[in-house]
């Protein structure tokens, strides 16, 4: 597979920001993510799991799906792919990286984010619109939101239960690194209703629900609550 890129002059006129979207064998949501990036006004750049360079992208999204069939553990094998070595190095130097669903699992397996994802406590695959509260609106991927803002975006997974030891959870809370919390019924047994977290620097964010499926009024939730993730990073890149 060769990597190609596509450009769309977006409504915000930030069409020169290049956002990479990684495709592993088994990734499902890469196309939707590319589309969300274009709708937000960025340029979506395809990255393949075997790529050994990041094609000069300004940020990276690890999209949802079942990379490597979720064999061993969700995200465990993807974490050792050539493209991830580049991304892990970049993330440590400040490259904005967003992990959605399976992407979040890859980020915890890579130890770019603390904790781990486990099978939902009820053992069922869940697929529904999920209300969340944006707890931290200062990260590279959430600065278009207000702290405390409620959004609704789709949630679809079976390995969505966030766990970490008590000390790590306390640390995350104290440092404001719980980025998103589930509202209403906890859908999977995630500790402290955590739906997503950020690293200390705010450039690496992971969450289980899917913002890329809520970017157009005609499909998904019927709202565009997810678009802010992608406008956030574009805003961040312009002001950087």
């Amino acid at each position, binding site marked *: 597979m060769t990597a190609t890129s596509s450009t769309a002059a977006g409504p915000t006129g930030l069409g020169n920001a290049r956002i990479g979207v990684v495709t592993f064998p088994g990734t499902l949501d890469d196309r939707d993510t590319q589309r969300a990036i274009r709708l937000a006004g960025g340029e979506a750049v395809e990255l393949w799991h075997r790529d050994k360079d990041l094609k000069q992208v300004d940020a990276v999204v690890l999209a949802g799906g079942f990379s490597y069939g979720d064999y061993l553990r969700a995200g465990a094998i993807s974490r050792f792919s050539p493209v991830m070595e580049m991304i892990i190095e970049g993330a440590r130097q400040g490259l904005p990286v967003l992990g959605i669903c399976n992407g979040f699992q890859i980020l915890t397996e890579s130890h770019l984010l603390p*904790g781990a994802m486990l*099978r939902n406590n009820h053992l069922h695959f869940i697929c529904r619109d999920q209300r969340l509260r944006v707890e931290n609106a200062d990260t590279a991927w959430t600065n278009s939101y207000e702290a405390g803002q409620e959004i609704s975006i789709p949630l679809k997974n079976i390995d969505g239960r966030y766990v970490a030891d008590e000390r790590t959870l306390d640390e995350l809370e104290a440092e404001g690194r719980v980025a998103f919390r589930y509202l209403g019924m906890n859908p999977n047994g995630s500790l402290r209703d955590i739906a997503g977290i950020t690293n200390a620097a705010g450039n690496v964010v992971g969450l289980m629900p899917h913002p890329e499926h809520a970017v157009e009024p005609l499909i998904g939730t019927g709202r565009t609550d997810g678009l802010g993730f992608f406008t956030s990073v574009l805003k961040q890149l312009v002001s950087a």
Partner: protein
Amino acid sequence: MARVVVDVMLKPEILDPQGQAVHRALPRLGFEGIADVRQGKRFELEVEGPLDDAALARIHEMAETFLANTVIEDFTVRVDS
């Protein structure tokens, strides 16, 4: 060829809903007297060459960095004779 077995189990404090589901099914199937079930993974490694300390150290490293996620799982390495 030497065989090394790596067992990976969720840490005791981590909820194991799969083990619980197995446990709940037991009375229905007529198996009584089981107080708890925890489900884990077993890897059987067929090792090429001599199984010396260096080889075992590499397998330990493999288990720690890849076969198990030590955030949530414990593992044991043993030579299967």
